[in-house]
């Protein structure tokens, strides 16, 4: 479904993504971890088309999308959420999702309304359709991010630290929602610092550091690797 081929991205002299290649299959849920500044969010920006690559190629559903603008990638089926929720403040929950259904999913009229409501329902906000976004708690804003991304009718969903800042109970609710999304056949790439939340859901785990791939594979075996511990968990394995 998604293929990254030797992609590079720098900001000035700072190398943020360096020779990264990766694949995501249909229906797969991939977790990404890495220390702050590892290039995780930049990777999402590159996949969603918010920033151009310096080098490398991105393929989505068999088509090269390296130079395709963000709005066309969204229409093609790449949806994303932000680490810090970015709702349209002047709108209600329903209006936020309807914008996505109208343009991302390409629906109009009642069809768009119904699709937006389905996305909101799956995210657990259906009882507050007409609530202004400015009145929402952090959890609800994160749910709205999810609802809006789902309303674009994605084939691939990019989730950027969607569990950050949530208490344990809220996180379990969120994980249930994500599992349901996965059951519907939507592929997910999930960046998260809360490793136990990730490992309870994802099929595969990718670890990056300084924009380079450190490990990729089964979550438990990846987390057992010595260099992953050393880099990500901050443990000095030389002097245990």
């Amino acid at each position, binding site marked *: 479904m998604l293929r990254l081929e030797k992609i590079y991205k720098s900001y000035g002299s700072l190398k943020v993504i360096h020779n990264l290649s990766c694949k995501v299959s249909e229906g797969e849920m991939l977790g990404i971890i890495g220390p702050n500044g590892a290039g995780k969010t930049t990777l999402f920006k590159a996949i*969603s088309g*918010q920033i151009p690559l310096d080098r490398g190629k991105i393929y989505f559903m068999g088509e090269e999308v390296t130079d395709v*603008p*963000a*709005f066309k990638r*969204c*229409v093609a089926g790449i*949806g*994303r959420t*932000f680490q810090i929720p*970015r*709702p*349209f*403040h*002047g*709108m209600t929950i329903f*209006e936020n999702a*309807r*914008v*996505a259904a*109208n*343009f*991302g*999913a*390409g629906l109009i009229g009642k069809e768009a309304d119904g699709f937006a409501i389905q996305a909101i329902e799956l995210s657990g906000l259906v009882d507050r359709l007409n609530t202004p976004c400015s009145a929402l708690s952090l959890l609800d804003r994160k749910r709205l991010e999810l609802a*809006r991304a789902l309303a*674009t009718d994605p084939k691939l969903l990019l989730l950027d630290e969607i569990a950050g800042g949530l208490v344990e109970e809220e996180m379990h609710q969120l994980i249930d929602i994500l599992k349901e999304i996965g059951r519907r056949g939507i592929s997910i790439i999930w960046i998260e610092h809360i490793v136990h939340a990730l490992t309870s859901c994802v099929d595969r785990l990718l670890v990056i550091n300084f924009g380079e791939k450190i490990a990729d594979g089964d979550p438990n075996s990846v987390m057992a690797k010595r260099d992953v511990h050393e880099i990500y968990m901050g443990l000095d394995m030389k002097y245990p």
Partner: protein
Amino acid sequence: MIAWIDTLIQGLLLGGFFALSGLGLSLSFGIMRIVNIAHGDFLVMAAYLCLVVSSLTGMNPLLAIVVVTTLMFLFGYGLQKTILNKSIDGGELSPLLITFGLSIILHNVLQEFFSADAKSLDVGAFEVASLNIGQINIGWLPITIFFVSLVVYTILHQIVESTRFGMIVRAIVDDAETTSLMGINTKKINCLGMGLSMAIVGIAGTFFGIKSPFFPLAGGLQLLFAFEAVIIGGMGSIWGTLLGGISLGIAQSIGYRIGSGWGEFAGHLVFFLFLLLKPSGLLSKETSHV
């Protein structure tokens, strides 16, 4: 007492023109985040366009306004598509410099084609006709400009609140980057937004040409008044610009009542006080749409 009531009414009506001329600027900032330095010169260009259309067709400028508005819409769309959209990715400074350059080019082009002499748009007796209420005389032209201004504001409000285009505009005003991730071609919306902005400049420019003589370099002062209306009202707020324009008009009118040289100064003073005490303006983006 009558003199002060007259002053307030004249100020209100003058404010209607400032509100109309500031609306295009407010829109281009609100949607595209473009501070259009050439705004005043586009206003003057619209007046010259109306002069050409009237001369060629014999139409009354008040009717030619429809042609001018349409042509200015197409001009705005094309300007955004060919030049400004490419500059937006370079940050906010880039379109500012480009519009500054356009302003200089426009000065020279207008001088080349129309000379530096002042011109005016002739609407006959309507220009001086007035409505007499007791001791107060109110010109029909300022009344017309004020009501046209209110109609334009109302239509724009309906577009923003009740149409699909308006829904996208509200989303872009909130967060343009996120809007593009919802499948919306924001560059195309920018073209429509600039077209709309220039269409409004077309209306304001025609009225500017009717109410006062104009010449190629007349845009600077109009840009200043439009800026003052927008900033007093609150950057990026439609209704704020209306209130800002009216506030500026009343301030200038009171200034003129005090002394003939005090009119513009009083307006600038109110603008300065707003910058000092309430730089966010009467209605900031947080309290209104666009």
